[in-house]
C-alpha cells in the first residue's frame, strides 16, 4: 500500500470534447448535470488488494425524483468494460449518507462492472445539493495494467461513473466520471537453485550437480567436458522488465600459479554468436588450453534465439543471461549451464573463480 497516495481524478478529454460539442447544440437538448463535488474514498489502493471498501461521495446537481443510482466501474472513462481483475461479486450495500433505507443493491450486471442501487418504493425526491456517500465493501482492486495496458509505472488509473436516474435506468438526472489510481509496491525476487547431474536443459545434460553457490567441476579429464547447470528464477513486477548478467570477478585461476582458464573460444564463438561446444584448441598452456563457457535457455537474449546446445564465452565481461521487457509476476525461469574443459596443456592445479549475477530491474 502506498501511504498518502493521492487518488487521481482525471478529467477525461473525451468528456471535454463532448462538452465542446454540446455547446453547438440547441439549448433544448437534455443534458445531464455533473455531481459537484464528486469524489471517491478507497480503503486501500494497492492493486489486487481484496476486501477493499470503495466509498463514492457525490453531491447532486439537480433536484429530481431518483429511482436508480448506477456505479459503473470501467477501464476507460465512460466506458463499459470492467477492469479484468476487479472483483465486484462480493460487494454489498454498506453504510450510506444522504439516502433513505429503501435502497437495495442489484448485482445482476457486476460482471460488466455495473452495480445498481434501486429504490424499492419507486422514485424518491432528492434535492440538489444533497451530499450522498455509499460504501461498497469487499471489493477486489484491479491489477496494474488492467485499465491502462501500456502503463510503464507501477500505477494504473481506472474509472467509476456514477449516474442517477429518475426511473429504472432510462432517464439520466446527474452523471459524472471519476478516475482512481491504484498502485503496487515494487518487488524483485532473484533465486538461484541447484540442478542435479543428469538433468537435460536446452539439449545439454549436466554431468555434475551444482548448488546455488557452487559450480564444482571436480577433477577434469583432458578433452572431456563437464557441464553444470543452475536454475535461475526472476519474479518481479518491474514494469519495464529486467536484465541479469553473469561475469567472473577474475579469470578462473590456479591456486599455485597464474595459470588460467580462457573464455570458451571455439571458432566464431562470442556471446552473441554462441557455438557448439568443442575441445579447447590451444597449443600452449593457459591460452585456450582450458575453457569456461555457458549455455543459456533464454531465447530472448540477443544471439540466443536458437539456444540448443550452444555455448558462449564466460569472462570478466558481464554477459546478459536472461531478460524481460516487462514484469514477470509469476516468475521467469532460465537455466544456465556452465561448460568446463581442459586439454593436455592445461597446467595441473586446483582452479577457482567467482561468478557474480548482477540483477537490474527497470521501474
Amino acid at each position: 500500500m502506498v501511504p498518502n497516495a493521492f487518488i487521481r481524478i482525471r478529467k477525461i478529454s473525451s468528456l471535454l470534447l463532448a462538452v465542446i460539442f454540446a455547446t453547438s447544440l440547441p439549448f433544448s437538448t437534455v443534458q445531464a448535470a455533473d455531481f459537484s463535488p464528486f469524489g471517491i474514498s478507497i480503503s486501500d489502493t494497492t492493486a489486487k488488494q481484496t476486501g477493499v471498501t470503495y466509498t463514492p461521495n457525490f453531491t447532486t446537481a439537480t433536484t429530481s425524483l431518483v429511482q436508480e443510482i448506477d456505479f459503473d466501474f470501467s477501464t476507460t472513462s465512460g466506458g463499459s468494460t470492467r477492469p479484468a481483475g476487479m472483483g465486484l461479486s462480493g460487494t454489498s450495500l454498506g453504510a450510506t449518507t444522504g439516502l433513505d433505507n429503501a435502497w437495495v443493491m442489484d448485482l445482476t450486471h457486476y460482471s460488466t462492472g455495473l452495480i445498481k442501487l434501486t429504490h424499492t418504493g419507486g422514485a424518491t425526491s432528492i434535492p440538489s445539493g444533497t451530499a450522498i456517500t455509499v460504501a461498497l465493501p469487499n471489493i477486489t482492486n484491479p491489477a496494474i495494467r488492467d485499465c491502462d495496458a501500456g502503463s510503464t509505472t507501477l500505477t494504473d488509473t481506472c474509472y467509476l461513473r456514477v449516474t442517477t436516474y429518475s426511473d429504472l435506468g432510462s432517464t439520466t438526472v446527474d452523471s459524472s466520471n471519476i478516475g482512481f489510481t491504484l498502485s503496487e509496491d515494487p518487488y524483485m525476487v532473484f533465486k538461484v537453485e541447484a540442478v542435479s547431474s543428469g538433468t537435460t536443459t536446452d539439449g545439454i545434460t549436466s554431468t555434475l550437480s551444482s548448488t546455488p553457490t557452487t559450480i564444482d567441476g571436480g577433477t577434469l579429464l583432458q578433452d572431456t567436458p563437464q557441464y553444470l547447470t543452475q536454475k535461475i528464477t526472476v519474479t518481479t513486477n518491474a514494469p519495464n522488465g529486467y536484465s541479469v548478467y553473469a561475469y567472473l570477478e577474475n579469470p578462473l585461476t590456479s591456486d599455485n600459479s597464474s595459470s588460467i582458464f580462457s573464455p570458451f573460444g571455439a571458432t566464431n564463438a562470442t556471446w552473441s554468436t554462441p557455438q557448439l561446444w568443442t575441445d579447447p584448441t590451444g597449443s600452449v598452456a593457459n591460452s585456450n588450453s582450458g575453457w569456461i563457457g555457458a549455455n543459456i535457455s533464454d531465447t530472448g537474449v540477443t544471439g540466443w534465439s536458437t539456444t540448443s546446445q550452444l555455448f558462449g564465452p564466460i569472462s570478466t565481461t558481464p554477459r546478459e543471461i536472461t531478460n524481460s521487457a516487462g514484469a514477470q509476476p509469476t516468475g521467469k525461469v532460465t537455466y544456465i549451464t556452465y561448460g568446463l574443459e581442459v586439454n593436455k596443456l592445461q597446467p595441473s592445479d586446483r582452479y577457482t573463480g567467482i561468478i557474480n549475477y548482477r540483477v537490474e530491474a527497470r521501474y
Partner: protein
Amino acid sequence: MNQTVRKFISSAITVTTALGMTGVSLVAQVAHGAQLNSAFAQLSVIRPATTSNHSISFKLATSNTVKAIKLVYSNTASGTTSPAHLDTSAATLTFLAESGGSTGTDHHNAWTLDKSTPGTFLLTNSSGVSGTGGGPTGDQYYITLSGITNNDFDFSSVAKCDAATDSDSCWIQIKTYTSDTTQDSTTLIDQSTVTYTIAKAVTVSATVDPILKFTVSAVNAGSIVANDTFAAQGDATATQTTSTSTSISFGDVTVSKAKLAQQGLQIQTNANNGYNVYQKFIGTDALTGSASATNNIDPFTGTSATWSSPKAWTADPTGTAASVDSGWIGVRTSSNAGVANFNVNDVYGPPVVDGAGAGTTNPGNAVVHSAGPDIGTNVYYVTYKIRVNAFQPADTYTGTSVYNVVASY
C-alpha cells in the same frame, strides 16, 4: 488507510467557466508525487558486505526545478528501516548528470551530499536545476554514489528484504523536491521506488590432475630426422642401425668409421613449470667389453667437448692406448629439444657415466627441456654416435643408458 481524493480546478478551469452553462464541472489531478519513469539501480559489485558503487537513474515525470533528491534505502518498499549491515557512512557522490543518463555531463560538484542519516542520501543544489518532465521522454538523471558497503543477510538475526535464500532484493525510494531546505509533501515533485539485488557469489572450481607420460620409440636405420641433419662427416649421413625402445645395437663397428643410432622421446605433461629428461650411462664405463672388463668405450671428449659445449665430431678417438679414449660414444639431442647449444647440427657431447647407478643424485645430461607443459606430440631425437680407433680391443661392448624424467609442477 483511507485515501482521500483531492481535486482542484486545473488549467482547464477556463474551459469550465466558458462552458458553465452546460453544467459541466471539471476535475483534475493534484500534481504531487508523480511517478518517475525508467528508474533503476545498478551496483558495481553485488556481493553482500562488499564495497560497491551504486548508480541510480530515473527520468523526470514533471517539469520543475529540482533542488533536492532524496534516496532512502529500506528493507520494505515503503518503510524507512535500512537493510541490515548497509553502511553508507563512507559514501561519496562521484557522478551526477541531470540529463543524458550515464553519458550525460557530470555536475556532481554542484550538488551537496548529506549522508548524516544512515541509509539515506540527500543531494541538494541550492540553485536548482530546471528539468523537463514527460515520463519516458523526461530528463534522465544518473547518480553514482561510491564507497557504499552493501548490506548483508547471512546472519540468523537479520531480517531479509525478501524470501530468497542466497540473494536479497531491497528498495531505494527516490524523491525529487523543489526545495533544498525542506523536503516534504509540499515540495515533492516526483517519486519512485526501485529494487536492487545483492547476491552471494557463485564459486567455480575445478581440479586438473597432474599427468606425465614418457615414451621411447624406435628409429629405423637410414632415418634422417627433422631438426637434426647428418651432414657428411666422411662416416655417416644417417642412422646405420635400427633401435628399439629398449635397445641400441650398433652391430659391428669398423675402425675409423662412425655409426649412428637414435631413439625418439615423447613427453606429455601438464606440469606448469615443465620438465627435463636426463640421460646417463650407469656402470663403471659407458660401454664395457664382455670378454674383458678392462675393455671399454669412453665418453666422447674430442676437442674438449662437454655437454654444455658440444663439439663437432669428425675424427677418430684420440687415445693411443687400448680402452683409454680409443673408443668414444657421444650423445646429441635434436635442436627442438630445448637444450642449449644443440641447435647446431652434428655436435656431440660426452654422456654422464654414473658408477653409482640409476638412483643417484646425478641425473645425467638433460636431453629434453621444456619450461611448460607438453602436449606430447613432439618427438625429440637422442642420437648415439660411436667410433673407435685402431687401439680399441676387439670385443663385444655393452652398456646401459637410462632416461630420467623430472616434471616440475
